C-alpha cells in the first residue's frame, strides 16, 4: 500500500492519460460508455489528491523523481501544502463538473461528439493536475499547452457557431501568452542553467540585478496574466465564457483559471522570491494598482451586462483581481486570503455557472431580464444561486466573506488603506450585479414567470449545485479547516519553513 502511495504523484497524472485513451476506446464500442470511464477516472484522481493532501500534511513535502533521475537532470514532481490544496480544490470542482455533465453535456454537445468531448475534457483535467504538481518549469509549460489546447477546443465545441470565434480568439491570445511563457523560461535558463523550480529559486538571487531576469519575470507575468485573464489582458474571457458549452464554462471558470493563477503565484513566490518583487524589482505597487482597476472595472462591466453568463464572466475578471490583489500586498494574511479566495471563487463561480447552465437547460433563457419569477419554478436552483451570490458579495459567514476579510485585513496591516477601500467598494459593486439577478428571480413580475413552466433541473445537475451552495456556507463556517492547510502553504511561499 505504501508503495502505491509513493507512486501516487505520478499515477494521478498517468492514470488519467491512460484513462483518456480508455474513454476513446470505450466510446468506440458504445458512445454511452465514455461517460462512466470519465467519471471513474476523475473520481480516482480526486481520491488520490485527498490521499496526497493528507500525506503532505502529515509527512511534509513530497518529491517524486521521474525516471529516477534526481533534479536538475530529471524532472521532479513536488507536492507541498500549497499545491496539494489546489489539487484537491480543482479535482473536487472537476468531479462535480463531471457529475453535472452527465446531463449537462447534452445541452451543447451533439450526441455524436460526446466521445471526443469527454476525451478532451479528461485531458484538460489531466493537464491541470500536471500544471499543479510539476516542479520543473519547462514541464509546467508542456502542461500549460496540454491544458490550453484542450481548453481552446472545448470552448469552440459549443453548438452555437459563435463559440468557434470565441475559441479562436482564445487561441490567438493564449498562444501569445504561451510564447511569452516560453521566452520567460528561456531567459531564466540563460541566467541560471537549470529548469528545476527549487534550484531556480536558490540560484536566481545571484543574478537578480540582470535585465535578463527582469525580462523573464515580465514575460512570465504577462503570459500568465493573459491566461488568467487579469485585467486589462482579459479580452478573450467574456466571449469564451459566454459562448462555450455550459460544462466547459464551469470547468474553465473554476479549475483552469484557478490553476493558472496558482502557477502564477508559484512562479512569483517559489521561482522568484517575495524579496524579488518587493526589493530587487519592486512591482507590488503596480500589481496592486492593476488589481484595483481590475476589481472595479470588472464589476462595473458586469453590472452593464444582461446575459447571465457574460455577467458572471466579467465578475470573474473582477474576482481574479482579488487574487492579484493578494499578490500585490504579499504579506502572510493577504496571501492566506488570496489562496482562500482561489478556493472560494472556484466554489461559488462553479455554483453560479452551473445555475446559469441549468436555467438554459430548462428554459433556454440567457438574458437576466427574462428570469422574472424563476424562483417559483426552480426554487432549489435559485436558492443555490442566492447562496452562492451572497458568498460572491461577501456576506458573512460565507466563504466569500472570509477570503475578503483576510484580504482587507492584510491590506490594512500593510498600511494600504486605499486598497482596502477599493476592495470593499468592489464587493459593494458585486452586490449590485448579483442582487439584480436575485431580485428578478425572486421578486420579478409573477405573470411572466408562469410562461416558462420548466420544472427543476434533473437530479444529476441539482446535486452538484446544492453541494457547492452548501459548501459556500459550510466552508465559511468551518474556515479553519482549509486555513490549517493554507497557513503553512503561505508560510512556505513567503520563504519560511
Amino acid at each position, binding site marked *: 500500500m505504501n508503495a502505491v502511495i509513493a507512486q501516487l504523484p505520478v499515477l494521478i497524472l498517468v492514470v488519467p492519460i491512460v484513462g483518456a*485513451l480508455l474513454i476513446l476506446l470505450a466510446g*468506440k464500442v458504445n458512445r454511452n460508455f465514455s461517460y462512466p470511464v470519465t467519471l471513474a477516472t476523475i473520481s480516482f484522481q480526486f481520491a488520490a489528491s485527498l490521499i496526497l493532501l493528507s500525506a503532505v500534511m502529515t509527512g511534509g513535502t513530497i518529491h517524486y523523481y521521474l525516471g529516477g533521475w534526481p533534479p536538475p537532470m530529471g524532472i521532479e514532481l513536488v507536492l507541498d501544502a500549497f499545491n496539494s490544496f489546489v489539487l484537491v480544490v480543482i479535482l473536487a470542482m472537476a468531479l462535480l463538473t463531471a457529475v453535472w455533465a452527465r446531463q449537462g453535456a447534452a445541452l451543447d454537445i451533439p450526441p455524436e461528439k460526446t466521445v471526443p468531448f469527454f476525451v478532451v475534457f479528461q485531458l484538460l483535467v489531466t493537464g491541470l493536475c500536471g500544471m499543479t504538481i510539476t516542479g520543473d518549469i519547462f514541464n509546467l509549460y508542456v502542461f500549460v499547452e496540454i491544458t490550453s489546447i484542450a481548453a481552446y477546443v472545448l470552448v469552440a465545441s459549443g453548438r452555437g457557431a459563435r463559440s468557434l470565434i470565441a475559441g479562436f480568439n482564445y487561441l490567438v491570445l493564449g498562444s501569445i501568452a504561451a510564447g511569452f511563457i516560453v521566452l520567460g523560461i528561456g531567459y531564466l535558463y540563460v541566467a541560471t542553467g537549470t529548469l528545476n523550480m527549487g534550484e531556480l529559486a536558490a540560484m536566481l538571487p545571484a543574478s537578480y540585478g540582470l535585465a535578463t531576469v527582469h525580462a523573464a519575470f515580465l514575460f512570465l507575468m504577462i503570459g500568465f496574466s493573459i491566461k488568467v485573464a487579469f485585467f486589462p489582458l482579459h479580452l478573450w474571457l467574456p466571449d469564451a465564457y459566454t459562448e462555450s458549452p455550459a460544462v466547459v464554462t464551469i470547468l474553465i471558470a473554476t479549475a483552469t483559471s484557478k490553476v493558472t493563477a496558482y502557477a502564477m503565484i508559484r512562479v512569483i513566490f517559489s521561482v522568484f522570491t517575495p524579496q524579488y518583487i518587493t526589493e530587487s524589482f519592486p512591482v507590488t505597487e503596480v500589481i496592486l494598482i492593476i488589481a484595483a482597476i481590475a476589481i472595479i472595472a470588472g464589476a462595473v462591466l458586469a453590472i452593464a451586462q444582461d446575459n447571465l453568463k457574460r455577467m458572471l464572466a466579467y465578475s470573474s475578471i473582477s474576482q481574479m483581481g482579488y487574487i492579484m490583489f493578494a499578490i500585490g500586498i504579499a504579506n502572510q494574511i493577504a496571501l492566506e486570503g488570496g489562496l482562500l479566495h482561489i478556493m472560494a471563487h472556484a466554489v461559488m463561480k462553479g455554483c453560479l455557472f452551473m445555475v446559469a447552465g441549468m436555467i438554459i437547460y430548462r428554459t433556454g433563457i440567457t438574458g437576466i431580464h427574462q428570469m422574472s419569477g424563476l424562483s417559483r419554478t426552480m426554487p432549489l436552483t435559485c436558492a443555490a444561486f442566492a447562496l452562492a451570490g451572497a458568498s460572491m458579495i461577501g456576506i458573512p459567514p460565507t466563504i466569500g466573506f472570509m477570503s475578503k476579510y483576510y484580504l482587507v485585513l492584510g491590506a490594512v496591516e500593510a498600511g494600504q488603506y486605499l486598497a482596502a477601500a477599493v476592495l470593499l467598494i468592489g464587493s459593494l459593486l458585486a452586490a449590485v450585479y448579483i442582487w439584480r439577478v436575485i431580485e428578478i428571480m425572486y421578486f420579478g413580475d409573477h405573470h411572466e414567470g408562469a410562461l416558462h413552466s420548466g420544472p427543476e433541473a434533473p437530479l444529476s445537475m441539482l446535486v452538484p449545485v446544492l453541494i457547492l451552495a452548501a459548501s459556500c456556507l459550510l466552508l465559511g463556517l468551518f474556515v479553519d479547516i482549509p486555513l490549517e492547510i493554507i497557513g503553512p502553504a503561505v508560510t512556505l511561499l513567503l520563504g519560511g519553513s
Partner: protein
Amino acid sequence: MRENVVIRTVSRLSIPFIQLFSLYVIVHGASGAGGGFQGGVVFAASFILMLIAFGLSGIRGRISEKGTMVLAATGVFIYAGIGLLCILFSGNYLAYAAIESALGIPHLHGLLIDLVEAGIGITVMAVMTSIILDFADKEGNIRD
C-alpha cells in the same frame, strides 16, 4: 486526371521507400539525428502523398479515418505503459533502470528508448494522418 498518372506512378514507387526511411529514422534516433517525431512525420508524409496522388476514395482500402485514433492511442499507451511497467518493477515512473535490474539484462536502456520512440512515432504518424484526412474535403482534394 491525366497529368495525375505521372504523380501516381511516382507515388507508387516512392511511398514504400519513404515508409522504410521513416522506420530507419525512428530506429536511428538513439545513435544519430532522428527519432520518433521525425520518423512519424515522415511516415505520415507518405500517406499525404498517397492522398494527393489517389484522392480520398483511392486510399479508402489502405488507411481509414476510423483506425487512426486507435493507433494514436496505442502509441501513447506504449509510452505510458512502459512507464507503468517501471513502476511494476518497483522503480519510479519511466525509470528504465528498474526494468534493467529487475530482468537482469544490461543495456536494455537503448532498446526501451527505441520502444518509446516507436510509441511516439506511431502517435505522431496516426494523428498527422488523421488531421490531414479531416482537412481533406470529401473529394480528397487538398488543392484548389
